[in-house]
Structures are given as structure tokens and as C-alpha cells.
């Protein structure tokens, strides 16, 4: 039997049930509070599914991947630098408009995502209906409906995590377009990033180009040691 450990990170907005899903997956008994911001440090647990070991990390709740506060910084750095094999994006089905923003940011980061559409019971009580297949198709990632409280959907979620980990075509086919004018600029910056092989192999070039054009200070860490740094910054209009 091959011994593989799959590294899984759980991410999501505050108060979507990340820690509950973490506990369900790992059988641990982490404290779950009914208020946001319970998870500030990083918690790790292990579990085995179909003879494959998974190491699960519960990240702090975050609305975005910018580096405003220490908990958001932890989530961002972990995803970007540690590159987990699978990122489980936990989406509150009863509050989906707000939650899908983080999903889009993760799509742009080209991470290997599985969406857990949690709190399906509350969404149902609000008379929300979901076309799971269509949502999965639009996002280009698997979408698993769950109710963490009653452990519903956990088996499917584990299966989806394993599938995603062994999936060969990790690079998604769904790209978020920004219109012709911006796309021309993104391509310009991206092409320049591609000339630095190390940089282009370490971070998704399109993501890096978009962040640079957004004037996101925190990507400075990513490009500061690049020999092309000055050129890239100039083209990105810094």
C-alpha cells in the first residue's frame, strides 16, 4: 500500500461552520463558538479515509485573501506558501452571495478547490433552492451540499477531497474575465512575469498580474526577490 498524506486546508467566511466540519472530518473536539473569530490560531488534525491519510488544517475565518489582519494573513500565507493539496472552501448556503466572493478569490489563486455548501438546512428553511450541478459547472469545481451540525454530506465530502487530490488536471478551465481593456493589461504584466521562471512556477502568473494591477501591497513579498522586479512594477504602473 502506498503511503500518501493529503494536506487539506479548510477555509471560509467567519461563522460558516469551518470548525464543525473540521471536527466532523478529524473526530476532534475543538471548541465551536457561535460567534465569529473563534479560530485564530491554526489547528491541525488527522484522519484516514479509504486507507489514505489526510492532514486537515482549520484556517481562521476570512472574508477575503487580503492581508488586513493577522487572522486573514494566516489564511492567505498558508494557501499561497504552503500550497495544500486540496482547499475545502466552506460556503454558507444561507448566505451565498457574500460567501462566493472568497470562492472567486480562491479560483483566481488556482488552488485545488472543493466547495462544501454548508448550512443547507438553514438555506432550505429560507426556501433557497440550489442547482448544485450547474453551480459546480460554473465554478469548475466539485460542490458538496452539507449540514455539518448533523454530519450530513461528510462521506461525500471526504470522497470529493480524495478525488480532488488525485485529479490530474489541477488547473481549472474556468477563468474570471475582466473585459478587453483590462485583459490586455493583465496579459502584458503576466507575460513579463513569465520571463522569470522561478516566479512563474511558484505563483499563478495571472493571479500575480491581477494583484499587481490592483496595487495590492502584500504581493510585494512574492516579487521582491525577482530579478525582474523593477520591470514588473513599472509595467504594472506602480
Amino acid at each position: 500500500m502506498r503511503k500518501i498524506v493529503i494536506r487539506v486546508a479548510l477555509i471560509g467566511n467567519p461563522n460558516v461552520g469551518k470548525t464543525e466540519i473540521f471536527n466532523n472530518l478529524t473526530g476532534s473536539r475543538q471548541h465551536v463558538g457561535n460567534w465569529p473569530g473563534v479560530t485564530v490560531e491554526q489547528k491541525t488534525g488527522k484522519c484516514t479515509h479509504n486507507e489514505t491519510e489526510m492532514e486537515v488544517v482549520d484556517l481562521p475565518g476570512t472574508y477575503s485573501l487580503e492581508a488586513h489582519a493577522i487572522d486573514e494573513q494566516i489564511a492567505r500565507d498558508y494557501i499561497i506558501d504552503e500550497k495544500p493539496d486540496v482547499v475545502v472552501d466552506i460556503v454558507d448556503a444561507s448566505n451565498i452571495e457574500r460567501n462566493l466572493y472568497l470562492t472567486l478569490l480562491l479560483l483566481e489563486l488556482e488552488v485545488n478547490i472543493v466547495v462544501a455548501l454548508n448550512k443547507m438546512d438553514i438555506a432550505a428553511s429560507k426556501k433557497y433552492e440550489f442547482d448544485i450541478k450547474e453551480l459546480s459547472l460554473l465554478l469548475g469545481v466539485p460542490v458538496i451540499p452539507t449540514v455539518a451540525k448533523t454530519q450530513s454530506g461528510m462521506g461525500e465530502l471526504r470522497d470529493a477531497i480524495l478525488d480532488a487530490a488525485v485529479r490530474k488536471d489541477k488547473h481549472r478551465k474556468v477563468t474570471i474575465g475582466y473585459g478587453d481593456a483590462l485583459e490586455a493589461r493583465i496579459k502584458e504584466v503576466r507575460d513579463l512575469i513569465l520571463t522569470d521562471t522561478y516566479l512563474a512556477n511558484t505563483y499563478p502568473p495571472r493571479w500575480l498580474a491581477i494583484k499587481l494591477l490592483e496595487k495590492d501591497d502584500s504581493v510585494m513579498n512574492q516579487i521582491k526577490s525577482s530579478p525582474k522586479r523593477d520591470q514588473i512594477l513599472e509595467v504594472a504602473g506602480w
Partner: protein
Amino acid sequence: MFGMRGRIFGAKKIHEIEEKVEHVHEDIEHVLMSHPGNEEVSSHLKEIDKHLHELIADSKSLESGVPLGLLAAGDEGVVLGYCGGRGVARRLLELGFTPSSKIKVIAGFPGLLVDVKGSRIALGRGIAMKILVDLDGR
């Protein structure tokens, strides 16, 4: 775009600006009347006139806006826009204060606790003053 203006116009200020725009409009009319026949100049002037009126219409739409920081617990409204730089705007968008989203103030002192898109967001008064809310917008 509201966010570009960088400061809040009071109703009185808007009225003053409107009067000035009206003067410029009359001047433009006058020039057009006294120098007929120059198609290029007149089309340019008409364009300027149009922009001025758009500008005043934009400012007027802010007239009904109140800074979120001035609201009290129980108040409800719709986000109109922001005053401030790109950093502020981006952070507020991330937190879900997208223009035309409904908000409700849960607590108003000492900081604000605001319900937006199903989440309760705590805001300092400083940043809350930069969010313009339309109270009449249901």
C-alpha cells in the same frame, strides 16, 4: 461614481453649485446665440453643457445620503457609495458593503454593529462615516 468625489456635499453646497452651473449654462447659451454658424465650437459647448448637468445630477443623488456613522440602532438603509481612497473602498467591498446592498444598524455605540448580507460587521465610527447610506431607499 460616488466614491471618486472624496467628500460629502451638503444640501446647501449642492444648491450653490447648481446655481453656478446655471450661470455657466446661460453663458454658453449666450455664446451660442451671438456666434451662430461655427458648428465645431457649438458642438463642443453643447457637450460641456451636458457634462455640467450630469455632474449636478450626480451630486444631487448624494443629497439623500447620510453617513452610516450618524445612524442609530434600528436604522435601516441602502448603501449609496463611499468617500475615501481605494483602500477603504476595497475593504468595505470585501466586507459586503457593495453599493445598493441593504444594511441595518444593530448597535450604535460605542462602535457600530451593522447587519449586511446576513453577517454582523463591527465598524469603527471613522470608517462608518465614509459610507453613505440612503435612508429612504427602504
